[in-house]
């Protein structure tokens, strides 16, 4: 569904907050930047960001805003704000709750590509804007199947999905970097 009239976004914009973004930059900036969301930036900084930079990808991570009355709308706003502040069209990577936020952000920002790790079963009913290529990763389950139908792609199954919240587990990261090398890397 296309939504052009966004009365709520116009009349009640999300209240801005200070955001924490951690980054790791490669020596030579060739590819679209990556933006990781869903966990504190520190979580991604610990192992993932440097590995991305080593493989030639500028990588950024956004710490979710705290607060009791913070929902998908606020997180989506923050993701799009950071993505739009990057020099080029970004690749959004959603991990844990971040998968839901990235799914929402795809209806507001034309990402270069998106990776949803453990996507939720309930996805936004608005159309994806732009021409983002989507990669779905996770353990077998309803979420992955539903997301596969929604984005019309074949999901990638992980053998040990329970270790996903372990930042030292580099296996899914290497897989998604391989996918990015093949699909969105600049030749």
């Amino acid at each position: 569904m296309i939504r052009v009239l966004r009365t709520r976004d116009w009349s009640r914009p999300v209240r801005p907050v200070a955001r924490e973004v951690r980054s790791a930059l490669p020596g030579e900036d060739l590819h679209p930047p990556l933006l990781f969301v869903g966990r504190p930036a520190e979580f991604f900084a610990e192992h993932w960001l440097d590995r991305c930079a080593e493989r030639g990808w500028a990588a950024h991570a956004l710490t979710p805003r705290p607060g009791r009355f913070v929902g998908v709308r606020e997180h989506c706003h923050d993701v799009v704000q950071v993505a739009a502040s990057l020099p080029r069209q970004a690749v959004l990577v959603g991990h844990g709750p971040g998968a839901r936020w990235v799914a929402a952000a795809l209806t507001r920002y034309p990402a270069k590509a998106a990776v949803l790790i453990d996507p939720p079963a309930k996805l936004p009913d608005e159309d994806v804007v732009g021409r983002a290529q989507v990669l779905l990763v996770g353990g077998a389950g309803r979420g992955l199947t539903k997301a596969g139908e929604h984005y019309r792609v074949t999901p990638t199954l992980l053998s040990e999905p329970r270790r996903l919240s372990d930042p030292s587990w580099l296996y899914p990261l290497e897989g998604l970097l391989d996918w990015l090398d093949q699909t969105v890397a600049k030749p």
Partner: protein
Amino acid sequence: MKNLLEHGFAVDCYDRETGIGGAWNIRHERSPVYSSTHLISSKPMTQFPDFPLPDHWPDYPHHSQLLAYFERYAEHFGLREHIWFGTEVVSADPIENDRWRVRVRPAHGGTERELSYAAVVVANGHNSQPRTPALPGIEDFRGTVIHAGSYKDAAVLRGKKVLVVGGGNTGCDIAVEAAQQAAACWHSTRRGYWYAPKYVFGRPADQVNDGAQWLPLRLRQWAFHRVLRLTVGDLTRFGLRKPDHKVYETHPIVNSQLVYYVGHGAITPVHDVKRFNARTVEFEDGTEAEPDLVVLATGYAPRFEFLDPGILGANPPRLWLHMFAPRHPTLAVAGLVQPDSGQFPLVHWQTQAIARWLTLRNTNPERAAQIWAGAADRAEWRWTKAKVSATERHWFEVSHVTYLKAVESLLKELTA
């Protein structure tokens, strides 16, 4: 351009200026922007819906910030490599199979080149060609007369006696600057206006207004009148005229400061100009002024000097949704609307519709022909909610909600 590229088209963009930003780049020859220009619509109503203005910018950014925003947009989506800067389009003529022969040349002289394109999108703006009304006796006037288009900085007003002609947003801005800098300021308007403040209830006024879109128009008009009456009060007490129209019936004037300076006596409101004499100016209400500088804030007119006049229809152009020329399915105009909100969300959805329309013509010509069949009749439609005043300036005014609803249903039709 970004939306066409996104839909897989190869795009060449010709711009007679040498940088991004068009009218919003104050260094450009035809830019109407002056050093104090700020937006009159707040951020959410102004930004491209898929590329937000930064959170740390103010509610109503300065024109230089808007230029920075356009430069970042071009960088972000890799548009620069598709733009031929410093190149102007001399003519665009329809040839066989709905294709276009386009002649271009360097803006400051040089050899012309002739190219052929499958479609042409016109996006040259409508604020670059100053419009000057016939003012009796102006040739006898000994003072200086400039058009607001060449007004750049309040320094030219300092210590002068200034007459500002025109009650639009630019006219009001300049009158306020004259109140601050000049020795005297007269402000001549054809009619009374509603001066909407930038903030009501501590929030940008346009956001408050859009939050009330579910209310019927008449109720909103009543509430708006009520709020202005309670906060600003009776404008006729200041010597300003009573508006001859309801609010939302003309492009809004957003200015919190004008009434304030009228109240200080720093601006003297006067009626329409009757005639110019050598030293003085007479007004319809019988008063006179003796200015050294006259600033004509009398607006701009859209111009399409590279198109044969018949192509867009009579003057003013008759275009379906202010975009499509009924006889030329591969010609589209973007940005020829004056909304009661920010301009850029409308232009974004217009260009999405143009890109999808051109895509559909390739993928499903029968369906495209069906949709097109009704275009000629619909070119007469207008997309305003309130009854818009019919002066020459107001023909492409639209109400953003009504207009976007129409574009939304077109987008749905094109993607179904």
